[in-house]
């Protein structure tokens, strides 16, 4: 079996960020790493985050740093990845992607202890970077310019120190003196040698300064000073003319300023009121802002509080560190202050946020309340503060992130034909249940009802120079109304348009005339309200019309056409009566003017000839006027045609070249896209088709991000547009629309005005490029598992938090979901405030019944304090026919990581969505997995698998198998087979022997795998995922399967063969490394008629699918494409065998833990679309195809899923 692996939703989690001007000078941008993808974002002036480019790296990015060569105004990016190589990237504006400038190998690949890549620091003046491993190795690379001012990189200079653990490294700002790097180090050699264990207890941490001597070209250990044993992070302080230089050393509860030959200055970190003093507080993130009149730092603590830190200094002498409370935001992986006045907070989990600074002053000293505390006989004052809602920051935008997806289900609970994805996301108080639907999210700006059902709607500008539209024109069967757009939308009667007839088209003609086409003629309204009219000869009735700013063509009811052009004085002149040789005309369009041209060159006509439908292209050039230049047969009657220029590749504004396309919307709901030669008008022989819906497809030209785009309306609405240099066609998540037009006003610069039944709606599309749009519902604790109550379509969600006190949690959250967090001005919302750590083995947990359609909580079952719900399933019991039960397993006072303990099995009866308590069964282990099986309940208790039956007072244990290697974490069943996932030993196949009442392991997997999720794909095959980010399929060999099913009695004899595991071994048939921990797997289809696929959700919030190929030919094609593409992505020149931008080889990345087997990497294949046209052509030729065909194949694979 060959599978095609494709990421559907890129991961949302952010692992590290780098700030700089990458695409152009003064463009303040942030590069973010999502682990294996790199993204460039830019907050615009309005505070909306714009995603500029996203790139797959085929490696794990662990650290990033930006640097700028002296005298330059753009930044380079350095990546520290798992490739054993350092790569230097530059953003190429032309190709809208990062390109590798340098790639230097220094060690083995993989995230190893002593191979650098974990920490990266650049010299503030951009002369060198230091890249370091967790232990021992540190390398310094020196950057320079060569004669042609290209960036050069030196060979590495070593600054290794054996037996040393690194916590943090930074580049110290020393101006143009020799670059200095500071490292926070811990030496373990004494602890390893001391038998008494004393050294380990009294260990030391040191701050070491490494000086890069540019003259001698080597690195010297300049100074090494002991620091607080609980130090965790370094922060460089601006130097040279901007500040005193040196570093801040963050430790638990305090921050110290350090510089060689400078006395230490120490300050205590202010604490939240009520936070126990024995609970240490760490700073985990920082950012700083340099201004003309000084600099300040923002620090974030591990519980989310932001502090403003300034230094009091005189010349180079620091006398005081001042720390004040600033605001509280979600706990971040990194925070970045932008020079444009924004703060980007890359949350550890959940959505990322962009805040605008309202003030950078922070709170006054008066907000801080010193509390005197006696520690070891000394009285010290510790500043305290009360967290409050945001005062200095204003939330302006969010970047959605599903991270972490802990459980996920693909189901159609809303009855929409297309299944939705329900994902349990988040951690602690920021947990959510999110409903994902394929398509772009649409925001309603306005909805107004009209007296009857309008037929169509247009918007028109008053002049070609205007940015906003002037009128909205709505037409009914026998009337037209005109609305003027201003602060409000009002009906007007002085527009000059004919109101007493139906309208066929309204548009801007020339610079400032308006054209209305109605069945009885053409009406031109000049800017001075002069009106001129044209009436078709012989009382002809106009049926169809196509216009651009200079040309008009109409088709009459008798299927003749008349073509007009605008003359120099702004008068429409009849130019010709194009002939296409009879037949019914069904659709028309004229090509757009294009920049600087006064005439669209082509006319497209969809007409019938002898009962079959064709589209013809007529030339409008004076040289070949009205010649039919090409034609194409259509499979059905065209409802609508659209000639439009969309740039494929870089956006037009960024220098991309537009391609002329003919879109044909057919009556049977199919959209065709054909490339048109812009010179000759020839239609390309290959075309794309896509089924959009059950209604005839109507096409409308609109603008999306100032680029031309097509809105296609059928029973679903779709948008075809260019996003980040790629053509995309995406459905809108909205009800059926009948007619649409682009809309621009001051309040809504880019939207659509649409007709749906008797309403007029103004819509905008948000978050372009998004594959799924989401609705979320808040939960109170980390969601662990879910079960579906089929009858009512409700979810049961287990919410369980470790390290949390149930009593306090109850008090704090009362019920978050129900009263949507009181808007109390002085109280910080609980989701931001978080919770006080309760300590190890303390749990808070509840079971919630949710109606995902209504987004409403139906019932909450509170568990006893310290009881943690871990597993759930809906079960039926053979002696309680017709009743459904919900069982969930809990652990009491459980220690994380421990494999022993005790707990309960709770049983509730289910009626509709109502759960009623039946009984509670004590259990001598931790029930990690439950599954209903043939009228009984399978429970994984530690390393045992047990079968329970329903009893009156409790569940009754019937039989048990204790031979699961370590700990049962997943159970699934199909027929009489049971598939059990072990925490470290992959899948075991079991069978229940009814006669002997035995559960028998008859086969298992040969690989050790740390299972997180499993689902049976067919009777003999199981798909599984492990903690390290692998997905695999394991299958029983045919003969084993036959033997087992033929001789049911024979299975008993396999028992007792403990030494080598089970009697039979399953074979691995598919193996693939995703690159992030997969927590959920399901076999499902994502669209009606789509192919069955294995859908997975990851810790980073990514969603992907593995779908089977339909033919061997496809497999060969994609295997070859993969082979050609390896190494091409991001390489500046073609390298026959190279690597992605981070220097990791794709094949070795996908074979991280086990060699990749029978999976084609769709993410790699899709990088074909980002290659330069010449490279695309070369690869396509090697595959005996055209680039168009390759792109079509790629699109088809994606379309089969979504």
């Amino acid at each position: 079996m060959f599978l095609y692996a494709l990421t559907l939703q890129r991961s949302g989690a952010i692992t590290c960020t780098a700030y700089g001007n990458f695409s152009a000078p003064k463009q303040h941008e942030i590069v973010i790493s999502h682990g294996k993808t790199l993204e460039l974002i830019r907050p615009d002036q309005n505070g909306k985050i714009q995603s500029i480019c996203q790139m797959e790296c085929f490696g794990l990015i662990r650290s990033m740093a930006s640097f700028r060569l002296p005298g330059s105004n753009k930044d380079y990016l350095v990546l520290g990845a798992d490739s054993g190589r350092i790569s230097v990237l530059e953003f190429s504006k032309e190709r809208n992607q990062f390109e590798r400038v340098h790639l230097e190998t220094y060690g083995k690949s993989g995230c190893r202890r002593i191979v650098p890549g974990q920490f990266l620091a650049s010299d503030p003046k951009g002369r060198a970077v230091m890249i370091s491993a967790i232990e021992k190795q540190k390398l310094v690379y020196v950057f320079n310019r060569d004669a042609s001012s290209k960036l050069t990189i030196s060979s590495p200079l070593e600054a290794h120190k054996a037996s040393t653990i690194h916590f943090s490294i930074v580049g110290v700002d020393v101006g143009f003196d020799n670059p200095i790097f500071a490292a926070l180090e811990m030496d373990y050699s004494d602890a390893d040698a001391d038998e008494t264990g004393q050294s380990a207890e009294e260990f030391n941490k040191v701050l070491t300064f490494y000086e890069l001597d540019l003259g001698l070209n080597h690195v010297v250990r300049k100074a090494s000073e002991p620091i607080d044993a609980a130090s965790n992070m370094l922060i460089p302080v601006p130097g040279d003319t901007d500040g005193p230089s040196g570093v801040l050393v963050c430790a638990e509860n305090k921050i110290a300023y350090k510089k060689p030959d400078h006395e230490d200055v120490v300050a205590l970190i202010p604490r939240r009121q009520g936070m126990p003093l024995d609970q240490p507080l760490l700073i985990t993130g920082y950012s700083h802002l340099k201004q003309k009149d000084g600099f300040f730092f923002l620090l974030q603590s591990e519980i989310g509080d932001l502090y403003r830190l300034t230094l009091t200094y005189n010349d180079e002498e620091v006398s005081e560190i001042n720390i004040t409370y600033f605001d509280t935001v979600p706990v971040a992986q990194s925070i970045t202050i932008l020079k444009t006045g924004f703060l980007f907070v890359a949350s550890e989990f959940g959505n990322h946020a962009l805040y605008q600074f309202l003030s950078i002053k922070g709170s006054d000293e008066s907000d801080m309340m010193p509390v005197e505390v006696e520690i070891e006989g000394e009285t010290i004052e510790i500043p305290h503060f009360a967290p409050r809602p945001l005062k200095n920051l204003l939330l302006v935008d969010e970047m959605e992130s599903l991270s972490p997806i802990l459980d996920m289900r693909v189901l159609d609970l809303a009855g929409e034909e297309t299944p939705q994805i329900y994902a349990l996301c988040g951690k602690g108080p920021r947990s959510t249940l999110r409903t994902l639907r394929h398509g772009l999210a649409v925001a309603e700006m306005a909805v107004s009802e009209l007296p009857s059902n309008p037929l169509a709607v247009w918007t028109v500008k008053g002049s070609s120079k205007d940015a906003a539209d002037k009128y909205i024109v709505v037409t009914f069967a026998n009337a037209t109304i005109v609305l003027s757009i201003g602060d409000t939308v009002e009906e007007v009667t002085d527009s000059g348009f004919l109101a007493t007839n139906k309208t066929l088209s309204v548009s801007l003609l020339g610079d400032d005339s308006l054209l209305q086409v109605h069945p009885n003629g053409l009406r031109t309204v000049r800017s001075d309200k002069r009106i001129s009219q044209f009436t078709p000869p012989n009382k002809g009735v106009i049926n169809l019309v196509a216009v651009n700013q200079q040309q008009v063509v109409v088709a009459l009811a008798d299927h003749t056409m008349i073509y007009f052009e605008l003359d120099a004085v702004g008068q429409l002149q009849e130019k010709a009566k194009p002939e296409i040789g009879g037949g019914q005309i069904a659709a028309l369009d004229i090509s757009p003017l294009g920049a600087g041209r006064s005439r669209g060159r082509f006319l497209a006509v969809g007409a019938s000839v002898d009962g079959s439908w064709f589209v013809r292209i007529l030339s409008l050039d004076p040289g070949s006027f009205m010649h039919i230049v090409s034609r194409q047969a259509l499979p059905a009657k065209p409802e609508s045609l659209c000639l439009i220029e969309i740039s494929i590749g870089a956006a037009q504004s960024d220098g991309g070249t537009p391609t002329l396309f003919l879109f044909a919307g057919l009556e049977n709901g199919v959209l065709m896209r054909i490339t048109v030669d812009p010179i000759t008008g020839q239609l390309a022989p290959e075309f794309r088709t896509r089924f959009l819906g059950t209604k005839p497809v109507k096409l409308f030209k609109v603008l999306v991000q100032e680029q031309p785009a097509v809105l296609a309306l059928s029973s679903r609405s779709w948008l075809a547009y260019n996003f980040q240099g790629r053509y995309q066609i995406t459905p809108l998540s909205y009800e059926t629309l009948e007619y649409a037009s682009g809309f621009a006003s001051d309040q809504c610069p880019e939207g659509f005005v649409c007709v749906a039944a008797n309403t007029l709606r103004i819509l905008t599309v948000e978050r372009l490029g998004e594959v799924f749009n989401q609705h979320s519902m808040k939960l109170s604790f980390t969601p662990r598992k879910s079960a579906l109550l089929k009858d009512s379509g409700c979810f049961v969600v287990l919410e369980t938090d470790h390290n949390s006190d149930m009593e306090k949690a109850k008090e704090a959250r009362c019920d978050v979901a129900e009263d949507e967090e009181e808007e109390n001005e002085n109280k910080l919302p609980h989701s931001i405030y978080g919770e006080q750590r309760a300590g190890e083995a303390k749990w808070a947990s509840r079971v919630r019944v949710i109606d995902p359609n209504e987004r409403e909580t139906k019932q909450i079952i509170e568990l006893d304090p310290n009881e943690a719900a871990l597993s759930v399933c809906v079960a039926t019991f053979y002696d309680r026919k017709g009743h459904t039960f919900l069982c969930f397993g809990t652990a009491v006072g459980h220690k994380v990581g421990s494999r022993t303990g005790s707990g309960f099995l709770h049983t509730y009866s289910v009626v509709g969505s109502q759960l009623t308590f039946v009984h509670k069964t004590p259990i001598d282990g931790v029930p990690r997995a439950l599954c209903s099986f043939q009228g009984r309940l399978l429970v994984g208790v530690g390393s045992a698998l047990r079968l329970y039956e329903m009893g009156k007072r409790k569940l009754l244990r019937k039989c048990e198998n204790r031979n699961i290697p370590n700990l049962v974490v997943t159970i699934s069943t199909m027929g009489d087979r049971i598939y059990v996932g072990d925490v470290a030993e992959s899948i075991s196949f079991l069978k229940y022997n009814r006669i002997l009442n035995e559960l028998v392991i008859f086969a298992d997997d040969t690989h050790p795998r740390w299972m997180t999720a499993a689902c049976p794909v067919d009777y003999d095959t199981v798909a599984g995922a492990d903690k390290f980010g692998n997905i695999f399929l394991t299958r029983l060999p045919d003969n084993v399967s036959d033997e087992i099913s033929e001789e049911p009695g024979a299975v008993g004899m396999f028992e007792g063969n403990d030494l080598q595991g089970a009697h039979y071994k399953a074979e691995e048939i598919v193996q693939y490394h995703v690159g992030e921990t997969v927590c959920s797997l399901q076999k499902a289809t994502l669209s009606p008629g789509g192919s069955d696929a294995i859908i997975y959700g990851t810790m980073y919030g990514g969603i992907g699918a593995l779908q089977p190929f339909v033919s061997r030919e496809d497999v060969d094609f994609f295997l070859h494409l993969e082979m050609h593409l390896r190494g091409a992505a991001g390489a500046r020149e073609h390298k026959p065998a190279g690597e992605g931008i981070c220097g990791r080889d794709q094949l070795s990345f996908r074979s991280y833990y086990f060699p990749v087997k029978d999976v084609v990497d769709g993410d790699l294949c899709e990088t074909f679309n980002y290659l330069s046209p010449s490279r695309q052509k070369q690869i396509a030729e090697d595959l005996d195809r055209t680039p168009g065909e390759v792109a079509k194949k790629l699109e088809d694979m994606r379309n089969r899923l979504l």
Partner: protein
Amino acid sequence: MSSDAKSVYSQQEHLQMKYVGTGHADTSKWEWAVNQHRDTYAAYIGHYSLLAYNSVAENESIGRLKYQYLQKMLSPCGKPPKKEDD
């Protein structure tokens, strides 16, 4: 000792110098375990998704866990066993 054996010995020594954790004939159980633990913690930190996984399980911040793991690398398996005098 033949020169071949010598060179193998010196090669091995070189490897042990270069790659921390390379074993030798006298590697004790404790040394082996310490290296394994340190490698494991390094892998947790290097693979961000494992860090996130543990962070969700323990309900601690990622920054805190990273610090804890680095700290635990100092002496992951307690004090070394007493050397036996031979």
